[in-house]
């Protein structure tokens, strides 16, 4: 249900590489803010943009993969394990419980996870780029 919590430890080192503290240190010596590199599309600016975009895209794809497995797996489950089609949980049929009710809170939790993570990525990017 919480895709990132499992995936996070594996992903974290990669993300840190993108906005690494060594670059951060280098910009301190340089009085020129990185925002100008972004504006003028220097190679350095492009590297930072590519880092931001790939971090965000990886997060998005992680969430989508979770959704595709969770939702997309359901018809497959019903197809391959016919017993699940008629399974009752507390007198409510399992398929109706999942698709009629449970999907919605899960979708909300996944969305909230995404919003928090992407805001964190942007926050770190802003911090590094504005040199503060």
């Amino acid at each position, binding site marked *: 249900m919480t895709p990132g919590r499992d995936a996070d430890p594996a992903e974290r080192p990669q993300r840190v590489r993108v906005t690494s503290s060594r670059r951060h240190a280098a910009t301190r010596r340089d009085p020129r803010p990185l925002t100008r590199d972004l504006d003028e599309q220097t190679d350095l600016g492009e590297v930072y943009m590519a880092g931001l975009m790939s971090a965000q895209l990886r997060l998005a794809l992680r969430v989508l993969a979770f959704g595709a497995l969770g939702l997309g797996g359901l018809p497959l489950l019903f197809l391959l394990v016919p017993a699940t089609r008629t399974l009752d949980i507390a007198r409510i049929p399992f398929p109706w419980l999942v698709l009629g009710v449970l999907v919605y809170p899960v979708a909300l939790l996944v969305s909230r996870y995404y919003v928090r993570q992407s805001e964190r990525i*942007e926050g770190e990017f802003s911090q590094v780029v504005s040199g503060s």
Partner: protein
Amino acid sequence: MNTAFGLTAIILVCVVTLAVGAFGLRLSRTTSDFYVAGRTVTPIRNASAIGGEYLSAASFLGIAGLVYTSGFDMLWFPVGYTVGYVVLLVLVAAPLRRSGAYTLPDFAEARLESQRVRLLSSVLVVAIGWLYLLPQLQGAGIALQLITGAPSWVGSLVVVVVVVANVAAGGMRSITLVQAMQYWLKLTAIAVPGFVLLAVWLGDGSPAPEVATTSGSHWAEPLSGFGGQDHPVYATYSTILALVLGTMGLPHVLVRFYTNPDGRAARRTTLTVVALLGLFYLFPPVYGILGRVYLPTLPEGVRPDAIVLALPTAVLPGTAGQLLSAALAGGAFAAFLSTASGLTISVAGVIDQDLLRGRLRRITGEDATVVQGFRVATVLAMAVPYAAARVVEPIGLATTVGLAFAVAASTFCPLLVLGSWWRGLSTVGAAAGLVCGGSLAAGAVAITMVGGPLEGWPGALLAQPAAWTIPIAFAVAILVSLATPRRIPRHTSRTMVRLHTPEELDLDRAPGHR
């Protein structure tokens, strides 16, 4: 059913809508100032407005009708409508807001720096908008027919007149507050009778749904022949894809994102939308299930799409049932009016700005004012789907809406996703993707709507085209782009900076090509 109650509720909703439209001129001046300058619309109000516009006839009546007729597999429709916003959130919510685009053609032009792609997008917006307006008008016809016995063209005409009067007068335009109230009105109108009916059902000892088992298909079980079609597994997956990827490409969705102050707020608003839609969609299936309990065979002249309106009087004879039914009829008309208004504004705006303005000026010299042009466009935007609603036999409200989603998913989904994330997208590639995905999906839709459902694999592939048209559209856009690297827009890098960097950074955000 008691005609007086239902009719009163419908007239009340129409009059309130018109009154708001009439006063809207004054109100909208303050509201639009509010939203361009102050932009202090909170995520919850903005999200309610999105929900108010998004929950259409298909949601209010269609889902219950589908669940009633075809059972479990139809639950994928509300799930898809909701999860579509999750996909929109993770792939395009913030970039769309940051692009500064007000409409889909605006985005196409800003990202691809091409008037041709803009024009192509405009044509597609109009096509998808018309396809989506069709079931709103059909739904209104069905609802009014059930309540008053009037022929179905009357109900459609009521919606056309109210919406055209409103939109042409300039009301409903930027009134976030009104659309926001629509959401809560619809939620109340479906939830309160829903709880009452559930209570009665529990009091009756919760009898099980009665299902006439036809040809060994099991109503309550998954994969039981998706709407009576062959190949239910394919149909299930294709429908999921269409709904989940189509939401981002609907004409009236993007406009509301503009009301967010920045990309971050756009994400938070979308998050709230997911919550509000999830809350609403708990209820429609309840009507479908209880319909099976209390109305195992439909009364004469009642379509499955009207089950929501027919159910209360079947469960609760007497005034109580009639009052609940009237509340539902009012809510249903609120759904037709709000969705149709949002769509009409979007479609009319595009017709006016991109397709009509130049031509009108040429015909009339400089006589036609901007406002007149918009009014002509509004009438056009509604006249075509109204004529279509007279000609095309209703194939189920949610099914028609599903087709609109399929076209949107096969055209704007590749454009928005590749446009936001891939620097290699070329002007030619984007145009090829739009043309290819659009003509394949629209062709399949046209065959299904005119020819009726076909047998076997061809029927399944044409009735649910998304599973093959979306991959083809993506593949064409990517391959053609790779073959035409010289046609990558010149300012792509600058546009990417604008789409993806947080607004708090002090960067040059002027569109690169103007």
